[in-house]
C-alpha cells in the first residue's frame, strides 16, 4: 500500500461496497438503476448506469443481480423491503439516489426502520444503510439540492454519517455496513469527485467520532460535508491576520461526538458553525445549543451560525451562489466572534 494512492470519494465508496460484499454474503445493494439496463435486450447493457454518479457500476458483474438489484421507482416499497430484509437476515445497502426523495419512503424509515428495535423490546435489529446524495452547487434546483440531514438526526433510532474526505467515506461506509442499526450515509454531490489518499485494504472509521481537521486556539469552527472546505480555506486565510482557527468535522451527525466539540470550545472560547442545511432546527442550532449549555462558562462571544437562508434552493446560478454559504460569510462570522 502506497501513501500516494489517491481515489475520488465516489471510488472510495465503491471500494468499501466491494470489500463488504466480498466479505459478507448477506450484504446486498438495491435501488433505482444501481446496476442499470434491467429488462434491456442488449447483451452488453449490464452495468450501463450504476446510480447517478456511477458508484455501484461494475458490482453486478462480480456479484450478480441476485445481490445487486435494480428496483422500480417505488421508494417506499424498496426501502421498506430493505428494512424488512434487514430484520430477517440481510444487510441491505439501499440507494435513495437524492436525499430530496425521502418524503416518499419516510414512513418506512422513521416509523418502521427507526422504531422496530425499540417497539419490539430490543428483540430485532435493522442493519440497513441508506445512501443518498445531498447538497447544492450544481444548479439542480429545489428538489435535487437539499441537505435535510437535520431531519434524520432528529429521529431516534437513526444514525447519520456525512463524510467529507475519500478516506473517511471508505472507512465510514465500511463501518455503516457492519453496523447493526439503520445508518443514513450521505454523500455530498460536490465532494464525490474530490480526491484524497485511500488505503487499498479495508478499514473502519468508527461512527460517532469527530475529527479535528485543523488545530487552532482562537475559535472553533464546526463544519459539515462540503462546508469543511470553506472552513479550512477561511482558516488558512485568517492565519495571516493571526487568527488560529480550529476546524472540526463531526463526520457523524448521529451519534454526535459532542465531547470533541465542547472540548474545543472550552479551549477557544468561540464557536462558529457552518451548515448547508436550512437554518431552523438544524445541526447548527443543535451544536450551538450543546455549547450554550455544556461550554457556557468558556464562551467569550455569541455563537454564530452560517447557513443558507430559510428558503428552498433556487435554480439560477446567480441565486444559488447567494444561497449556499460562501467562504466570505464564514470569514465574516469568524471576524465577528473574534471582535466580540
Amino acid at each position, binding site marked *: 500500500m502506497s501513501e500516494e494512492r489517491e481515489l475520488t470519494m465516489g471510488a472510495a465508496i465503491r471500494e468499501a461496497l466491494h470489500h463488504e460484499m466480498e466479505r459478507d454474503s*448477506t450484504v*446486498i445493494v438495491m435501488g433505482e438503476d444501481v446496476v442499470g439496463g434491467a429488462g434491456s435486450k442488449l447483451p452488453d447493457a449490464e452495468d450501463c448506469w450504476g446510480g447517478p454518479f456511477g458508484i455501484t457500476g461494475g458490482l453486478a458483474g462480480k456479484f450478480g443481480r*441476485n*445481490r445487486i*438489484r435494480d*428496483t*422500480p421507482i*417505488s*421508494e*417506499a*416499497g*424498496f*426501502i*421498506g*423491503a*430493505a*428494512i*424488512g*430484509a*434487514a*430484520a*430477517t*437476515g*440481510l444487510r*441491505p445497502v439501499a440507494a435513495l439516489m437524492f436525499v430530496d426523495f425521502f418524503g*416518499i419512503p419516510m*414512513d*418506512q424509515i422513521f*416509523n*418502521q426502520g427507526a422504531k*422496530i*428495535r*425499540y*417497539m*419490539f*423490546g*430490543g*428483540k*430485532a*435489529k435493522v442493519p440497513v444503510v441508506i445512501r443518498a446524495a445531498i447538497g447544492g452547487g450544481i444548479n439542480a434546483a429545489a428538489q435535487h439540492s437539499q441537505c435535510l440531514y437535520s431531519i434524520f438526526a432528529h429521529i*431516534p*433510532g437513526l*444514525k447519520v454519517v456525512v463524510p467529507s474526505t475519500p478516506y473517511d467515506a471508505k472507512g465510514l461506509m465500511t463501518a455503516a455496513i457492519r*453496523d*447493526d*442499526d439503520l445508518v443514513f450515509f450521505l454523500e455530498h454531490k460536490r465532494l464525490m469527485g474530490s480526491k484524497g489518499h485511500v488505503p487499498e485494504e479495508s478499514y473502519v472509521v*468508527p*461512527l*460517532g*467520532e469527530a475529527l479535528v481537521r485543523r488545530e487552532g486556539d482562537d475559535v472553533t469552527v464546526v463544519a459539515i460535508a462540503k462546508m469543511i472546505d470553506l472552513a479550512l480555506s477561511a482558516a488558512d486565510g485568517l492565519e495571516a491576520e493571526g487568527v488560529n482557527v480550529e476546524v472540526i468535522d463531526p463526520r457523524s451527525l448521529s*451519534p*454526535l*461526538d*459532542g*465531547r*470533541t466539540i*465542547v472540548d474545543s470550545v472550552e479551549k477557544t472560547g468561540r464557536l462558529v458553525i457552518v451548515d448547508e442545511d436550512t437554518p431552523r432546527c438544524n445541526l447548527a442550532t443543535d451544536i450551538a445549543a*450543546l455549547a450554550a449549555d*455544556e461550554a457556557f462558562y468558556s464562551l467569550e462571544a455569541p455563537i454564530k451560525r452560517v447557513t443558507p437562508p430559510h428558503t428552498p434552493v433556487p435554480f439560477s446560478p446567480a441565486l444559488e451562489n447567494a444561497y449556499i454559504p460562501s467562504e466570505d460569510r464564514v470569514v465574516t462570522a469568524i471576524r465577528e466572534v473574534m471582535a466580540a
Partner: protein
Amino acid sequence: MEIPKEKLLEIYERMATIRQFEERVREEFAANRIPGFVHLYAGEEAVAVGVCAHLTDEDMITSTHRGHGHCIAKGVDVKAMMAELYGRATGVCKGKGGSMHIADLDRGMLGANGIVGGGIPLACGAALSAQVLGKDNVAVSFFGDGGANEGSFHEGLNLAGVWQLPAVFVAENNGWAESTSSDYSVAGADIAGRARAYGMRGEVVDGLDLFDVYEKAGKAIAAARAGEGPTLLECKTYRFYGHHEGDKQGYRSQEEVEEYRKNHCVIKNFRARTTDERALTDEELDEIETRVSESIESAVAYAADSPWPEPSDVTEDVYVDYKEVL
C-alpha cells in the same frame, strides 16, 4: 383439501384462543386495566388462522393495528401478549410496544403495525431475504380494505411482482376502515382484482369460512414456496366489535352485527361442520375451550402480577450500539 385431525384441533384451538383473548381484552380494557388503544379481531379469526396454519416459525408475517389474532395464529405466547397489553416488563416487547406493536421474530411475527399499510413493504423484505438466501420460506402480509388504498400496497405488490417474491398478500376486507365503507373507499370495490395490475394471481376468499381460507391460502403459500411468485387474496370478513373499543358504530346497525354473530360466526360454523362430518366431537372441542379459557385466565393473572418496567429502561433498546458522547 383434506385437513388432518390434529391440524383441525390446532386450528380450533387457535381460533378459540383468539376469540377468548379478545373478549377478555375487551373486559380488561373496559375496566381500565389496559392502557392505550385496542382494536379487536373477534369475528375474523378464520383469516389469520387459516393462513398461518400453513406457516412455520421461519416464515414471516406482518400485521396491522388489529394484530392480536395474527400474533396468536402465528404462535406468539398469550401470557407475554397479555402482559404486553398491560404494559408490564414481562410483556413480549417488555412493555415498550403495546397492542399495536406486538412482535416476536422467533415465531416469525414481524410486528403488528400502527401505520395502515406499513407492513406490506416489510413483508416484501422478509420474502426478499428468503429469495436472496435461497431459502424456501415465504412471507405473508395481512392488511385491511383501507390499507389497500395506501401507496405502500401498490409499491409493495409491484415490487413483489417484478422480483417474483415468495410472498402472499392477504387483504382482510371486513367492509370498513374506521367508519368508512370499503364500497366507498376502494374505487372499483374489488381488491382481489387489483392483483392483475401487477401480473399477479388474485383471488376472492370467503374469510368467514375457515376451509375456504385454508385451501386458497395453502395454494398461494405453496406456490410462493415453489418459486412461483406472489398471490393476492381478498378475504371477505366481518368484525364483531367497533373499529376500536369505544367506537359507537353509527355506520352499521346492531341487527347486522347480530346477524353475523349468529349466522356467520367462524367458530360456530367450524364447529358445526367438523362435528357434522364427525371429524371432531363436541367433547374434544369443549375440552379445548376449557383449556383455552384457563390459559387466558392465567395470562391475565400473569399480566396483572407482573412488575412494571423500570423507568430507566426507557432509554434501552433504541440502538444496538450508540456511541454518543456528552
